[in-house]
C-alpha cells in the first residue's frame, strides 16, 4: 500500500516521525480499500443478479442474516485499534515530548507573516531576544527583535531560509504576526497552524540531507528542486507564493552557514533578501 500511495503522490519521508504518520495513512487506506472492495463486489453482484429482467419478482423479506452487524462491529474494532494503537501515541509524542533547549537540540523560532517565513536563530548563546510588535519594521526589523538585551545581540534571522542540520532534534516555536498561516514541510510530515497570539512548539528530526534528497529525486519531475516550506492555510492573495526554502545540511555545512550569518551580523547589514531558487 505504501508503494501504491507513493506512486500516487505521497513523497518519500525524510524525518524520524514520518514513517509513523505514513503507517497510519497506510493502515487506514487498507481499511478503506477492504470496505470498498467488499461492498463494491457485493454491489455489482446484486446489480447484475437482481436486475428486473433477470429477477422479476422481488423478495419481500430480503436478507435475513446478521452479517452486516458483524461487519459493523469489525469496522468499529479496526477503528479502535487505529485510534489506540496508532493515532493517540503519535499525537502524544507530538505534543508531549517537546524537547527543551538544554537537551542539546536546535531551537528556532518561526514568525510567519503575510507571505513570508521569518526564521529566528538564537545565535551561539542559545537564548532568544524578545520580540516586540511595536518594534516591527518591515524593512529593518521584520520580527520586532529587541536588540537592547544581551540575549538578542547575537540573534539573527533570515527570511524564508530555514537551515537545519541532519540527524539532530529540531524544535521550532511557531507564531505569526498577522493572520493564520500553516507551516508545512511535506517531506518531513510536519504541519502546524500558526495562530496569532499563540506560540506553538513543533519538533522533528530530519534523516536525510538536501543533497541526498536531490540525488534521490533524479529522474523524477521533482529533479533539481529542493525542499521547501509551504503555507497550507489561506492567508490572503499571496498565499500561493508564500514559500520558504528548507536546507537540511550536514553538521559541517550547518556550522559554516551559521558562521556566515554571524559575519553578516557584524557587517551590520540589515537588509535581507527574500530568498529564491538559489538558496536550495
Amino acid at each position: 500500500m505504501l508503494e501504491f500511495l507513493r506512486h500516487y503522490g505521497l513523497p518519500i519521508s525524510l524525518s524520524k516521525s514520518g514513517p509513523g504518520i505514513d503507517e497510519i495513512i497506510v493502515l487506514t487506506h487498507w481499511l478503506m480499500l477492504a470496505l470498498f472492495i467488499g461492498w463494491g463486489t457485493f454491489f455489482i453482484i446484486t446489480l447484475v443478479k437482481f436486475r428486473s429482467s433477470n429477477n422479476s419478482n422481488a423478495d419481500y423479506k430480503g436478507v435475513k442474516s446478521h452479517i452486516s452487524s458483524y461487519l459493523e462491529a469489525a469496522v468499529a474494532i479496526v477503528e479502535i485499534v487505529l485510534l489506540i494503537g496508532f493515532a493517540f501515541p503519535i499525537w502524544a509524542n507530538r505534543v508531549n515530548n517537546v524537547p527543551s533547549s538544554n537537551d542539546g537540540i536546535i531551537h528556532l523560532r518561526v514568525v510567519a507573516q503575510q507571505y513570508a517565513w521569518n526564521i529566528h536563530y538564537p545565535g551561539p548563546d542559545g537564548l532568544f531576544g524578545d520580540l516586540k510588535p511595536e518594534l516591527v519594521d518591515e524593512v529593518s526589523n521584520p520580527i520586532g527583535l529587541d536588540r537592547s538585551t544581551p540575549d538578542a545581540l547575537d540573534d539573527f534571522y533570515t527570511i524564508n531560509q530555514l537551515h537545519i542540520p541532519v540527524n539532530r532534534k529540531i524544535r521550532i516555536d511557531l507564531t505569526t504576526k498577522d493572520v493564520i498561516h500553516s507551516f508545512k514541510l511535506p517531506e518531513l510530515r510536519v504541519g502546524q497552524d500558526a495562530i496569532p497570539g499563540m506560540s506553538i512548539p513543533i519538533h522533528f528530526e530530519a534523516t536525510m540531507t538536501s543533497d541526498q534528497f536531490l540525488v534521490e529525486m533524479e529522474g523524477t519531475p521533482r529533479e533539481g528542486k529542493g525542499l521547501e516550506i509551504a503555507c497550507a492555510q489561506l492567508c490572503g492573495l499571496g498565499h500561493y507564493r508564500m514559500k520558504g526554502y528548507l536546507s537540511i545540511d550536514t553538521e559541517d555545512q550547518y556550522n559554516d552557514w551559521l558562521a556566515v550569518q554571524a559575519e553578516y551580523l557584524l557587517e551590520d547589514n540589515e537588509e535581507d533578501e527574500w530568498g529564491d531558487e538559489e538558496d536550495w
Partner: protein
Amino acid sequence: MSNDHNHHEESFFRKYIWSTDHKIIGIQYGFTALFFLLVGFSLMMVMRWQLAYPETRIPFVGSIFGDDGILLPEIYNSLGAMHGTIMIFLGIVPLAVGAFGNYLVPLQIGAPDMAFPKLNAASYWSYLVGGLVMMSSFFTEEGAARSGWTSYPPLADIEVGQTIWLIGMIFLITSSLLGSMNIITTIVQLRAPGLTWMRLPFFVWAQLVTSFLLVLAFPPLEAAAVLQLMDRVVGTSFFLPSGLVVSGELMEVSGGGSPLLWQHLFWFLAHPEVYVLILPAMGIVSEVIANNSRKPLWGYNSLVFATIFLGFMSFIVWAHHMFLTGMGTAMSAFFQTTTMIISIPSVIILSALFISLWGASIRFNTPMLFALAFLPMFGIGGLTGLPLGLAAADIYLHDTYYVIGHFHYVVAPGTIFGLFAGIYYWYPKITGRKMNESLGKLHFWPSLLFMNGIFMPMFIQGLAGVSRRLWDGGLEYAHASGVFHWNEFMSISAWLLGLAQIPFILNVFYSIFRGEKVDNNPWESTTLEWSAPSPPLPHVNFETLPTVYRDPYEYSLPGRNRDFTPQSEPKKNK
C-alpha cells in the same frame, strides 16, 4: 375543508409569487437553488481555467476580469470563497431542505400544508434576500468576500468584502431557522391519522433530523457572524489578539480576542451542516431505492436509529477541523474518538441500503441510476474522511487537496446525485409529466464519468501535499511538480461536466410541456404523496386527507396481485 374547493380564484400574484402554498414555495426554492448551483459551478469553471493554465487569458469571459483577461489572485480567492458559500448555503441546503423538504414533507405525511404557511413564505424571501445580498457583493468596489467560506479571522476581519458576506449570512441563517422550525412542527403535528413514527417514510426522518441540526447548530454561527460584524464595523476585537502587525503596521485595536473562538463557533455549525447536506440526499436515495428495487428497505429501524444517532453525534465532533490549532492529547483523543464513532452510523446506513438491493427486482430508470451511483460515490467520500479524522494522519493531509477530494465526493457525486435522483423521481408528481428517459441517461453517464474525472485526481494531489486555495494550483511549489499536470485533466473534466448538464436543463424545461403524461402514481409507489393528484391540489393537496394503515414500503407483499400496497390502503381483516 370543503369551502376551500370553492375558494374564489386567487390572483396570479397571490398564486405564484407571494404564495403561502408549500408546493409553490418549494418550487420557488427549487428553481432559485438550482440557479445558484449553476452560478456556483460557473465560478468554479472559471477558476479551473486558472488552475489548469495559470496566468493565461480566460477564454470567452476573460474580459470580465480585466483587460488581459487573467484571473488575479484576489479574484480567485473571492470566487473560491463564494463558490463554497453559494454551493452550501445558497445551493444545496435550500434545494435539499427548502425545496424537497417543503414540497414533499407535507405530502408524505398527508398534511394539507406546512404548519406555518406564512413563516414558510418568509423563510423563502429571507433566503432570496440573503442570496441577492451575497451576489451583490460581486458588484461592489471591494468585491466579494475572499477569506474562504470558513472566513477565519484575523484574515476575515481585515480583508475587504467580508461585511456583505456576513450580512448575507445573517439573512440565510434566519431563513434556515424559520424553515426548519416549520418542518419539525409540521412533522410532529400534522401527520395523518395512523401515521405513527415508525411508519414515516425514511425521507421524512431524514428531514426531521436535518431540521433539528439546523435549529440547534445555526444560531451559534449567527452569533459568531454578529461578532465578526462588530469587529469589522465598530472596531471591537473579539477575534483579534493583541499585538497584530499587518503589512508592517501595528494594528490599532484593543486586542485580547481569540481567532480560535471563531473556529469553534464556526465549526459548531459547519460540522452538523455537512450532515445537513447529506441526510436529505440519503432520504431521497432511500425512497428511490425502495421504489425501484420493489421491496421494503432492509433494516428500516436501524436506518432511523442510525440517523438519529448521527444527528446527535454530529454536535460533538466539530474540532476535527481544528486538529492543527495546537490541541493537546485529551482534546484530540476526544475528538478523534467521536469522529470514529460517527462514521459507524454512516456505515450502518450505507450497509442497509446495499442489503436492500439483495433479492430485489431492480428497475434501472434515471432516478434509480443516480440513486445507485450515490452509494459508491458517497462511500468514497465517507471513507476518505477516515484518515482525516485521525489526527496523526491529518497532520499531513490537513488543508490539502485530499480534503477537497473527500468532501466533494460526498457533496457533488453524493448529494448532488441524490438531489438529481429526487428531481427525476418526483417530477411527475409536480408536473403530471415524466422527464425524458433518454435525455436523463445522457445526463447521468457523462456526469458520473466526469465527476470522477474531477475529484479522483484530487486525492493524488493531496497525497503529494498540495495545499488547497492556491491561485496557481501549486505551480510555485516544488512538491507539486509531480502532480501539477493533473490540473488540466481535472479542469477539462469540469468543463465537460458542465456540458453534461445541458441535457438536464433542456429536460427540465422541455418536459414541462412535452413530457409523457402520466397518472398519479407512475412509479407504482406506496407512500402517501402518490395518492394525491399530480400536481396536488392548491393549498389542500389531497381530495380527502388520507389515513394510514401500513408501513411505508410495502412492496412485493406476498399474496397480492400488485407488487405494491399503498400506505393508505386499509388492511382487510382488522
